[in-house]
């Protein structure tokens, strides 16, 4: 665990040593605000809740999280530091966990900085703060799922643009897997069990439950499984590249 902690610290130092962290946080907060108040119609709805805020998280994450995850491994490959990292006495799993947890903590910081919107809604009305907390947890878990997918795909390439595009497409698939856009690809030929399985993978469906304030164990397990599966795949990809 001390190895993972050392890696997390190093990663976070790198985020804040470059403008990446600040640009990301500022843009994230600006877009969150713009979406909530303009597209979401926060005032017009006249309700003391944060639906107008949370409903846009999946779509914002779709583009912002891959921008965060694309560098995780691609940059290490490009600069050659992956050779340094993998010859230190660190297991691939520790390396993957360290990088992932650092990026997740960073996403958490950005998410936590949206707290003024919570203050605002509490000032204007009397919202269900338990439901808001649940939605924040759901949003954080969803960011973790996106980051795990992005980290895994980033390990395939030394090109950050490729990592970004692949991750956006993969995340888009995961977001919409409960919708005809994705399901129609499979429904013509795959058995119903598989189609149902794919439909149940949708980030959107699972996030929708949590963001209404209902924390269902199944949704938590779902996000934990997505994160676990992609991080495990991430270690396998690293192994392939070393044997290649």
């Amino acid at each position, binding site marked *: 665990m*001390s*190895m993972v*902690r*050392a*890696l997390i*610290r*190093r990663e976070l*130092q*790198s985020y804040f*040593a*470059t403008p990446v962290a600040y640009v990301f946080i500022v843009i994230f907060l600006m877009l969150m605000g713009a979406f909530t108040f303009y597209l979401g119609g926060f005032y017009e709805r006249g309700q003391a809740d944060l639906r107008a805020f949370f409903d846009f998280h999946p779509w914002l994450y779709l583009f912002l999280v891959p921008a965060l995850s694309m560098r995780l491994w691609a940059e290490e490959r490009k*600069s*050659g*530091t992956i*050779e*340094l990292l*993998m*010859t*230190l*006495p*660190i*297991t691939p799993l520790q390396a993957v966990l360290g990088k992932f947890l650092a990026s997740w903590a960073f996403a958490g910081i950005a998410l936590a900085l949206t707290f003024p919107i919570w203050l605002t809604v509490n000032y204007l009305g009397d919202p269900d703060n338990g439901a808001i907390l649940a939605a924040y947890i759901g949003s954080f878990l969803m960011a973790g799922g996106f980051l795990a997918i992005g980290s895994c795909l980033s390990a395939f390439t030394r090109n950050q643009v490729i990592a970004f595009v692949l991750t956006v497409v993969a995340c888009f698939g995961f977001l919409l897997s409960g919708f005809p856009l994705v399901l129609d690809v499979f429904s013509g030929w795959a058995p119903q069990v598989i189609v149902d399985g794919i439909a149940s993978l949708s980030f959107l469906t699972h996030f929708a439950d949590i963001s209404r304030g209902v924390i269902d164990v199944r949704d938590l397990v779902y996000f934990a499984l997505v994160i676990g599966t992609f991080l495990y795949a991430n270690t396998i990809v690293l192994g392939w590249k*070393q*044997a290649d």
Partner: protein
Amino acid sequence: MIEIEGLTKRYGRHKVVDDLSFRCGPGEVLGFLGPNGAGKSTTMKMVAGFVVPSSGSAVVCGHDIRTATLAAQQRIGYLPEGAPLYAEMTPAKFLDFIADVRGLSGGGRQARLAEVVSLLHLGPVLDQAIETLSKGFKRRVGLAQAILHDPDVLILDEPTDGLDPNQKHEVRELIRSMSEEKLIVISTHILEEVEAVCTRAIIINDGRLLVDDTPEALAAQGDGDFDAVFRRITQEGTPEAEAA
């Protein structure tokens, strides 16, 4: 201390390292020589645990790099080719990270960090981003990282590449001063370096071991002209083949 047995690396049909076997022990400074593309770096990457061999084994201090990777890597200090570093970090923070990963703690940690910083004259640049440093400083940060935990085995891929004559001299002095109790393997194509610091020279070409001898004996073959011997060996095959 390093036992290499039948080490082979295949990329497709091409054998980059072909059935390489040798042993070396403490007190030796082994010069690993060969033209560009001879397989020097690939061999070092395999011994350091970055590239997985196609077949054969490398045992470092009794630990097989494939089955006891971490135990072997703990004993090795490794400078990868080109000395890749986290460009956005400062040498101080970077070395702190390495000290974390190498498990240095307590009072010994600060003392060792200070010792390495003064050995490699990194004092003036400790708080400057690595990407802004000159090539000589970058190389020395890479060396500092490799020797920080006082490893039994040092593997240095072209340690003096890009240094000016004074810096080259200093690095050679450093290697010589550490050579008594350690095994040091350096790769180079600078022949004067082999004569200056190495106690043993191995010449490889096309991944195969051609010569394993002392630098003095090699130089004697060409009446003191090391360059001529190197050219003859690597261009025309082994001296034995020539004699026959």
